[in-house]
């Protein structure tokens, strides 16, 4: 359904070019939940923004295509992209306030969306709106419908955003850190709602997060990004249990989840490379324990490892 091919994005700033994305390939099928994990600066949010056509003005797409149902989004005009964003591609951001109209109450916003989508009377639309709020497990839908976004807590707002998405289901929902600003107890509820949205309305979800826990709970497939490149991708279970890329492995080991108190965490030494001056070879080599000579000189391309599991690492290559 969505097919991103060889996407490269650069940013221009005063000091020169930042290579934000290099040769990204992502493929999303109908009804799939795909997760992109990475740390800050990995390019995961840039990927989402380029699909939505929301990149900053100083961004420059130097290569590649984003094919959505036989149409290249990168060649579409602004109006069509906007129409697509409203109807076919939905979005949920970290801060739900951005997706809500500040001076319309929740009921009005839902009614507006429902009536755009279905030809129903206002009364019927209101009934559907209340239904939609019930669907996202809001206990007093009539009361919430009369409230304004600023009166709601972060968790409630995010639920409303999902209710909006549900009442006019898009084909693809792009969720950028949808639960990062929320408390843990609410986080799992929101994730469950997204799962429901996916199953009931067969919405495909592209979830962007820094949290491996979120990915493992929700996603069918996982893409691991580092320094603007995809370093590993495969079924979530495979990636998290049998990581092939040293970065994924190190990331998993740096989580405090499984370590005992008397053990030290296996931190990844150093910092993410500065993409204004991208390193030669594999972007991870300077922090990699198993780096070889070839890693410093040649960038390993993403290649099949086994089944649906792809990895960009010389350790997994016979030629190396």
């Amino acid at each position, binding site marked *: 359904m969505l097919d991103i091919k060889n996407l490269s994005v650069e940013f221009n700033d005063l000091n020169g070019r930042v290579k934000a994305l290099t040769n990204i390939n992502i493929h999303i099928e109908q009804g799939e939940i795909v997760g992109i994990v990475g740390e800050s600066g990995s390019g995961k949010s840039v990927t989402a923004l380029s699909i939505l056509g929301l990149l900053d003005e100083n961004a420059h797409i130097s290569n590649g295509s984003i094919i959505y149902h036989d149409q290249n989004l990168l060649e579409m005009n602004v109006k069509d992209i906007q129409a697509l964003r409203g109807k076919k591609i939905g979005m949920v951001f970290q801060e739900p306030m951005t997706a809500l109209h500040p001076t319309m109450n929740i009921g009005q916003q839902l009614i507006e969306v429902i009536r755009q989508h279905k030809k129903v009377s206002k009364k019927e639309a209101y009934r559907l709106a209340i239904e939609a709020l019930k669907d996202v497990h809001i206990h007093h839908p009539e009361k919430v419908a009369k409230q304004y976004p600023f009166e709601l807590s972060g968790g409630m707002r995010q639920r409303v955003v999902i209710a909006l998405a549900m009442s006019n289901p898009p084909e693809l929902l792009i969720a950028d850190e949808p639960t990062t600003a929320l408390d843990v107890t609410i986080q799992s509820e929101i994730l469950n709602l997204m799962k429901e949205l996916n199953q009931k309305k067969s919405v495909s979800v592209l979830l962007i997060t820094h949290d491996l826990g979120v990915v493992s709970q929700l996603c069918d497939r996982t893409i691991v990004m580092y320094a603007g490149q995809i370093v590993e991708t495969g079924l979530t279970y495979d990636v998290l249990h049998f990581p092939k890329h040293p970065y994924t492995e190190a990331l998993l080991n740096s989580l405090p989840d499984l370590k005992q108190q008397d053990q030290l965490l296996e931190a*990844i030494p150093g910092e993410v490379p500065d993409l204004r001056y991208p390193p030669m070879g594999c972007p991870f080599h300077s922090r990699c324990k198993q780096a070889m000579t070839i890693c410093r000189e040649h960038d390993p391309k993403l290649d099949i490892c086994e089944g649906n599991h792809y990895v960009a690492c010389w350790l997994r290559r016979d030629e190396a």
Partner: protein
Amino acid sequence: MTPLVQINHINKIYGKRKAVIQAIKDISLPIYEGETLGLVGESGSGKSTLGKLLIGLEPPTSGDISYRNNLLWKKKRFMRPSPGEIQTVFQDPQSSLDPRMRVKQIILEPLNALPDQERKVKGSLERLHTLVKRVGLKIEHLERYPHEFSGGQRQRIAIARALVTEPSFIVLDEPTSALDVSVQAQVLNLLKELKQENQLTYLFISHNMSVIRYMCDRMAVMYKGEIVEIGETKSILNNPKHDYTKMLLSSMLKVN
């Protein structure tokens, strides 16, 4: 064993008359020398407020806190133990470092509250260099400004600043919440090692159960201004008693 910090029946109420929020409801707890006490809770649970009472940023509405058997608050006045004895590292490394000061000035700043004699001893260049290297920064970083550093490095600067006075007790308010996981691991390890080397006592405030689990000997669970459960970290995690603790644990996302 007498505790290092003893908190007795503390209440904290914000606002006046109608718009009253009780941030802390009748909390009592001891913090023992050499331990890491974790304080876990969600936003609005009052965990950060409790930290502020200990470092002198907010006075309690009622109740008392003693540090080495001396009261920390007399009426609304903070009775500072010797300066630099209690230190803090905040969550947000963006705003906790003055953008107009060089790293060297930032790290040495707490010494300005010390008597001249002590300041000279603790502020020696040699000591500063050792400290900077210990927290994983380089000597040449001392002449730079905070905006030139990543979040993790800034947090290292904040940690060096907290250590420069040789404190006994550090309040860590979500010190790694704004950091990436791989960097979080570096900082957590550093904090753990520093505690060993300098015989520190930590109050570790976090919303992240797995971080608390990794860092803390004992933990307290806060919910709506109250402590609903307190005890050894291991026993609480293996056998939570309170419903809220159970809920927190069940909503933890596990990777495997």
